[in-house]
């Protein structure tokens, strides 16, 4: 029953450990500031669109499913199925990034990007802001409103880093699709697909945590 993990697989797992610790630093920061500035985090999170966030979550989970099916296809030496699964994963990944772009653009337009142009308007005066109105937000005191910038700092840092990992993954997927069509992975050598799958699932797991922590802090009135 006990198979040996081969060296490259073990190396990929060790690399994923470094990724856990890398994101871990940001999760630590998030946990601290969420507890310090809860009202600010609630108000700021209401600025995120649950529809887009949920859709992105569904997209990523589906892409994990298609990726797992891709690995299965490679193991069963079904080249057509493998290419299809990889292409689906690729498209889902692009869709995720597309939605992220929409969200980022909206943040940019509303001046919720940390830095020189950050605006506290939505939080000092919620009636002026559509999302805040819909969430029935009360105005925040000035100092707590300032802390919303911390929320957005973490939002951009965490989702940005996540998106960067998605982009790298999608590029490798592109390469893999080309190779898969040449039959590279359906002749018995599935390792590359499998280990890339590990990476892709890991990126999915990061989002599984990001979604409730960033989007779902408190949606109850």
């Amino acid at each position, binding site marked *: 029953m006990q198979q040996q993990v081969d060296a490259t697989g*073990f190396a990929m797992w060790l690399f994923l450990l470094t990724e856990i610790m890398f994101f871990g630093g940001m999760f*630590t920061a998030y946990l601290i500031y969420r507890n310090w500035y809860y009202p600010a985090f609630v108000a700021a999170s209401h600025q995120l669109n649950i529809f887009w966030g949920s859709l992105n979550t569904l997209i990523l989970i589906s892409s994990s499913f298609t990726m797992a099916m891709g690995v299965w296809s490679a*193991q069963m030496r079904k080249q057509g199925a493998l290419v299809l699964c990889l292409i689906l994963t690729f498209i889902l990944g692009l869709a995720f990034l597309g939605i992220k772009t929409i969200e980022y653009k909206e943040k940019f337009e509303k001046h919720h990007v940390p830095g020189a142009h950050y605006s506290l308007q939505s939080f000092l005066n919620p009636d002026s802001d559509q999302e805040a109105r819909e969430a029935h937000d009360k105005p925040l005191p000035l100092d707590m409103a300032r802390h919303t910038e911390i929320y957005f700092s973490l939002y951009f840092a965490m989702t940005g880093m996540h998106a960067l990992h998605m982009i790298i993954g999608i590029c490798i997927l592109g390469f893999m699709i080309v190779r898969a069509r040449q039959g590279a992975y359906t002749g018995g*050598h599935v390792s590359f697909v499998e280990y890339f799958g590990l990476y892709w699932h890991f990126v999915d797991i990061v989002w*599984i945590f990001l*979604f409730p922590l960033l989007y779902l802090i408190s949606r109850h009135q």
Partner: protein
Amino acid sequence: MSEHNVQHDSHAPKDHDDALEGHIVSPIIYLIIFGALLVGTALTIGASYVEMGPWNPIVAIAIAVVKATLVVLFFMHVKYSPKLTKLTVGAGVFTFLILIFMTLSDYISRAWGRW
């Protein structure tokens, strides 16, 4: 712990390098896990609309942990992996938790009681 190539009758030794050969997870399992993940997502969205006081973040994290565990065990094949893999994942999770909880130990105890 010396290494030997596991010999199979149906494959020449050098013909494959599938580390999990013999443990090909059935697509049915993947489908079930996929379904479970979708249910979990729906649950966590729904739970955020329900007022549960201090339990809200706990429920959210708990659901996320369950979803992540499913991905790790089944999509990433850890359930079917050798002990070394499980140990490695455990070591990573352990160190991650140390980072979070020991850093939090400072922040929680700064305004002791006024957290």
